[in-house]
C-alpha cells in the first residue's frame, strides 16, 4: 500500500482550496486517500493519527505544503501527486482578473486600492492579530472569519477598532451584511429595513432568511463574534453596532441575536437598549431577561424575525409553537406510525452552532435532560445534541457547512453507535456553503435507514432548511430531496425541534400542536 508524500516548500494555500483539490483528485484518480495540508503541528498530528504520516511529512514546517496520497500502486500514487501539484499551480496562477497584480501583503494591496474600507480576514488564528491590527491602524474596518484567536487578541483588536470608530466583526464571525452585501457565509436576500447585531453566524443566517420569507430584509447585519458579550470582551462591538444602527436612517427596527450576556455586561447592554428610539427585538437564546425600553423579548430565531416584521408594520403578533398546527397534528397522526417511536431517544446532528443551541433549549423544555456535544457512544443521557461545527469535531477539516463528510460519517455510525430513534438535522444554504448539502445527507440516510430496517429498528428524521429562494443551492430542490427521502422538513429549526420532541413524547405533541 504505497503512501507517497511530496513537500512543496514555502507554498501557502488556503484550506478550502486544498480540500477541494484533494477531493477532486481522489475522485478523478480513484485513489484511497489524498491529503493536502499546511505543515502545522496540528496537521502533522492528524496525518499521524490517520496513518498517512511519512518521514518527509514529519520534517515539513508550517510554511510548507504537504501532499500525501495513499493508492494501490506506486504509479497511481505518483500520478495523483502530479495532478494535485498541477491543479494547485493552476489555481495559484489564477486566470482571474487579479492574476497579474496579486499582492502578497495588506500594504501592497492598499497601494493598489488606497481607498479600501474593509479587510476580510480568514488566515490561521495565530496570525489574526498581526493582520487585523495592521488593517485597523490603516483605517479599515475588519471582518474576521478566523477562529482560534486568543480572547486577549480579540479585546485588543476591538479596543483599537473603537478608538478609531471602526467595526471589528469577529473573530469567529461567520456572517455579516454591510450595505446589502453579504460577507462570509450568507443567504441571498434583498436589502431591507431590519438592522441586526449577531454574536452568531447561523443565528444571523436564520433570521435573515426568515425576514426574506416574510417579505423584509436586512439593512446591515453586524456579526460580532460569539464571545463579544463575555465578561472579557464586555460587549464592546455589540454596543457600538447597536448605537450605529440606532442612528442609521435606513434601519427602522433592530434585532439582537446572542447567547445570554455575561452578568457584568447586562447593565451596559440594558442602558444602551433603553436609549434606542427604535423597536429592538432581543433574542438572547436561553434567557428571559426583560431589558425594558422599546425592547421585545423573543425565545427563538424565527420569533425574532416575526417580531421585527410586526414592529415594522405595526401589526400584532403572538408567538406560536407551529405556523400551521393542524398540519403538524395531521403529520404526527399519519406519518409517525402508531406511536411506535414513543419513548425514543432524540439526537440532533447540527452544522450550525446557534441552531444546535436553540434545538437543545427546546428539546430540554420538552424532554428534560438533554446532553450537548458528547460522543455518539456516550450513554450518560438519553437525548443528545451535537454541534459538529464545534472545534472539537473539525480539527484539520473545514467546517461541516462546506465539508458534509463530518456529519455523514456520524449519520452512518448511528445504527451501530447510537440508540437514537429520532434524528434532527439542519441544512444551511447560502453563499459559501456546500453546493448541494441535502444530497450527501440523503445518501447517508439511505444507508443508515437500511441498517436500521435490517435490525428491526425505526428512525424518524426531522430537518429544517435555512435558506432563501435566491440562494445558489435551489431551496425548493433541497427541500424536495429531503421530503422524497422521507424526512419531515420544517421551515424553521424551532418547529423541527418541537416536532422531534413530539414524536418521542406523543403527549407533548398533542399539546404543542394545539389539538388537545
Amino acid at each position, binding site marked *: 500500500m504505497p503512501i507517497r508524500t511530496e513537500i512543496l516548500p514555502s507554498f*501557502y494555500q*488556503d*484550506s*478550502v*482550496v486544498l480540500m477541494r483539490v484533494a477531493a477532486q483528485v481522489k475522485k478523478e484518480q480513484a485513489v484511497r486517500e489524498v491529503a493536502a495540508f499546511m505543515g502545522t503541528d496540528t496537521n502533522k498530528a492528524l496525518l499521524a493519527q490517520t496513518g498517512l504520516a511519512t518521514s518527509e511529512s514529519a520534517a515539513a*514546517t*508550517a*510554511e510548507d505544503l504537504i501532499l500525501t496520497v495513499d493508492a494501490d500502486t506506486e504509479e497511481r500514487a505518483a500520478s495523483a501527486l502530479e495532478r494535485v501539484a498541477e491543479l494547485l499551480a493552476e489555481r*495559484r496562477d489564477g486566470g*482571474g482578473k*487579479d492574476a497579474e*497584480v*496579486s*499582492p*502578497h*501583503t*495588506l500594504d*501592497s*494591496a*492598499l497601494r493598489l*486600492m488606497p*481607498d*479600501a*474600507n*474593509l*479587510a*476580510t*480576514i*480568514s*488566515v*490561521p488564528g*495565530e*496570525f489574526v*492579530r*498581526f*493582520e487585523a*491590527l*495592521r*488593517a485597523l*491602524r490603516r483605517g479599515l*474596518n475588519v471582518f474576521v*472569519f478566523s477562529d482560534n484567536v486568543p480572547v486577549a487578541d480579540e479585546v485588543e483588536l476591538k479596543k483599537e477598532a473603537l478608538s478609531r*470608530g*471602526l*467595526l471589528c466583526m469577529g473573530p469567529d464571525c461567520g456572517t455579516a451584511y*454591510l*450595505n446589502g*452585501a*453579504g*460577507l*462570509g457565509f450568507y443567504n441571498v436576500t434583498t436589502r431591507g429595513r431590519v438592522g441586526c447585531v449577531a454574536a452568531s453566524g447561523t443565528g444571523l443566517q436564520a433570521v435573515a432568511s426568515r425576514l426574506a420569507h416574510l417579505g423584509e430584509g436586512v439593512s446591515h447585519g453586524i456579526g460580532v463574534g460569539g464571545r463579544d458579550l463575555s465578561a472579557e470582551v464586555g460587549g464592546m462591538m455589540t454596543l*457600538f*453596532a447597536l*448605537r*450605529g444602527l*440606532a*442612528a*442609521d436612517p*435606513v434601519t427602522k427596527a433592530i434585532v439582537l441575536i446572542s447567547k445570554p450576556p455575561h452578568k457584568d455586561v447586562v447593565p451596559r447592554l440594558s442602558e444602551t437598549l433603553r436609549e434606542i428610539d427604535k423597536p429592538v427585538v432581543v433574542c438572547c437564546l436561553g434567557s428571559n431577561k426583560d431589558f425594558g425600553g422599546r425592547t421585545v423579548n423573543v425565545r427563538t430565531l424565527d420569533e425574532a424575525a416575526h417580531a421585527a416584521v410586526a414592529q415594522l408594520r405595526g401589526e400584532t403578533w403572538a408567538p406560536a409553537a407551529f405556523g400551521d398546527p393542524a398540519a403538524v397534528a395531521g403529520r404526527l397522526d399519519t406519518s409517525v406510525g402508531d406511536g411506535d417511536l414513543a419513548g425514543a431517544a432524540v439526537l440532533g446532528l447540527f452544522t450550525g452552532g446557534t441552531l444546535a443551541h436553540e434545538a437543545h433549549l427546546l428539546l430540554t423544555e420538552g424532554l428534560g435532560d438533554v446532553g450537548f456535544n458528547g460522543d455518539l457512544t456516550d450513554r450518560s443521557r438519553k437525548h443528545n445534541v451535537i454541534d459538529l461545527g464545534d472545534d472539537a469535531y473539525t480539527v484539520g477539516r473545514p467546517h461541516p457547512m462546506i465539508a458534509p463528510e463530518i456529519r455523514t460519517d456520524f449519520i452512518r455510525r448511528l445504527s451501530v453507535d447510537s440508540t437514537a430513534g429520532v434524528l434532527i438535522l439542519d441544512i444551511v444554504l447560502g453563499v*459559501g456553503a456546500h453546493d448541494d448539502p441535502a444530497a450527501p445527507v440523503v445518501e447517508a440516510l439511505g444507508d443508515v435507514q437500511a441498517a436500521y430496517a435490517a435490525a428491526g429498528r425505526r428512525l424518524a428524521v426531522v430537518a429544517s432548511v435555512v435558506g432563501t429562494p435566491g440562494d445558489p443551492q435551489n431551496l425548493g430542490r433541497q427541500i424536495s430531496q429531503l421530503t422524497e427521502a422521507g424526512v419531515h422538513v420544517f421551515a424553521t429549526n424551532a418547529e423541527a425541534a418541537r416536532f422531534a420532541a413530539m414524536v418521542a413524547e406523543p403527549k407533548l405533541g398533542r399539546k404543542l400542536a394545539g389539538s388537545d
Partner: protein
Amino acid sequence: MKPPIPKIFDEPLKVVNLGLAMFADNLRAENIDVIHVDWRPPAGGDARLANILAALED
C-alpha cells in the same frame, strides 16, 4: 449627543481579502470591488515573531 454611525454604513464596500480565496470570488460575483492578497504567513510562519512585529509597529 447623537451616537456616531460607522462611516462604512454609507460607503460602497472596497475590500482587501486575506485568507480564503472563496470569499474574494464571492464578493467579486456580487460586483464588489475586491483585491485578494496572495497571503503567506508573516515572519516566516513564526506567530510569536509576527506578534512582536505587530507590537513594534504601534
